């Protein structure tokens, strides 16, 4: 089950890599480069190893975030209610959802412990603009856990818009929750819930600024 974690984390890793470079890099190579880079970084950094969450989050923001399309992700997670949100609400939703995912990623990465990654060949045509990149996390005594990155081609390179861990789509998983919240409390209610959640995460665990 640690694999789940490493899975999630490799997701963030995936989005690594300088974005300038990203434009030319095919999606599977991008995922591999970013994953390798982030794993190396976090396993070597003593501060991160010893639990410096703030630093880990910085790493994620700098290296991983540029490869995610958060407005796509948020729109998909909010589902049919997205059209009911004003542009200003959309902006706040994206911001809060991003914060939540980054923190979650950080915990996943922090739990990484030497799992190996198996990068699967990309099954796509060169003309495709929407592909799934498969990676598997290998661990003894357990079935390999697949991590699938749904990626789309944009003007700024390939961007991840969903991550599936062991067949569980992050976006689809949030959709049920978000739907229920919007039904009860409206878009504002959802934004408020996300804010409360993010604030509670910022407070208790090890020293963290922001």
């Amino acid at each position, binding site marked *: *089950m*640690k694999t*789940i*974690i490493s899975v*999630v984390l490799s997701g963030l890793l995936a989005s690594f890599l300088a974005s300038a470079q990203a434009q030319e890099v095919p999606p599977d190579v991008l995922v591999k480069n970013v994953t390798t880079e982030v794993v190396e970084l976090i396993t070597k950094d003593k501060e991160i190893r010893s639990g410096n969450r703030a630093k880990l989050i910085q790493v994620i923001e700098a290296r991983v975030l540029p490869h995610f399309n958060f*407005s*796509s992700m*948020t*729109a*998909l997670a*909010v*589902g*049919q209610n*997205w*059209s009911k949100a004003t542009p200003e609400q*959309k902006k706040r939703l994206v911001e809060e959802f991003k914060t*939540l995912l980054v*923190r*979650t990623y950080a*915990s*996943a990465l922090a*739990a990484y*412990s030497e799992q190996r990654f198996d990068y699967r060949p990309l099954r796509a045509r060169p003309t495709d603009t*929407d592909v799934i990149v498969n990676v598997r996390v*290998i661990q*003894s*005594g*357990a*079935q*390999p856990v*697949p991590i699938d990155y749904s990626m*789309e081609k944009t003007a700024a390179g390939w961007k991840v*818009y969903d991550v599936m861990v*062991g*067949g*569980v*789509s992050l976006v*689809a*998983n*949030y959709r*049920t*929750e978000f*739907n*229920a*919240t919007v*039904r009860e409390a409206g878009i504002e209610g959802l934004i408020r*819930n*996300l804010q409360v*959640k993010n604030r509670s*995460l910022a407070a208790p665990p090890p020293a963290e600024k922001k």
Partner: protein
Amino acid sequence: MTLSRALSLPLRTLSLLLALAGGCATTEDRDPRDPLEPMNRAIYRFNEVADEWVAVPVASAYRNVLHEQIRSRIRNFFANLGDLWIGVNDVLQGKFFDGFEDGMRFVFNSTFGLFGLHDVASDMGIEKRDEDFGQTLGRWGVGDGPYLILPILSSSTLRDTVGWGVDIFVGDPVGEFRPIALRNSAYALRLVNRRADLLDASKILEQAALDKYVFQRDAYLQRRRNQIYDGNPPREPREPREPDEPPEKEPAKAPAPPPAEDQPAKPR
């Protein structure tokens, strides 16, 4: 060990659960996959407390005391015993070659792997599979049935509860361990090892979810579906990708309500 005994427990549990749930059904909009939500949430709360006060402390202590090397031997040992039943399920699903491979895993790991302590088969390229009787039933066309939270065991569905009963009473070699004290210790060790493996994951769940109950339920149902199709479930209809378009037109959830919800929920 008899089949009737194997089936009677889940069925009895189920009828009890259904009886309980009938009393607290309300008309408020509810996920059609989870008609028993109020009862499930009650059991979930109980499980949370038991987990926080018993399972997590025990599993954390276990993880702190035993080095990962040793824990992974223990994990491998039980995983190896499980491969036989996994093979049976592969065969029951018509995947004969997979079943053969699972059998080979058992043979290699039990011998070269020293009673399963080492997973040499994986190193040889015969990967571990994940099958259970709930998946076999799913493969045979049995639907999920209502989502259930079982005491202690947590997420399940009606189908998976029945499947689990068969796994435990028919397909679990640990159940054959004698004397009984040894068997019970093995059960306990397996459970603690499993919970210890899940410590990080459960922390992440805690962080990720707005409503843990809902998050866990959806993840469980998605995951089971993926397992039943061995990682290649039929694709869901694709949603438009433009962030500013309404991504989906169909109502939140359309699928037919599960059979257990035949009679309309009683208003109150």
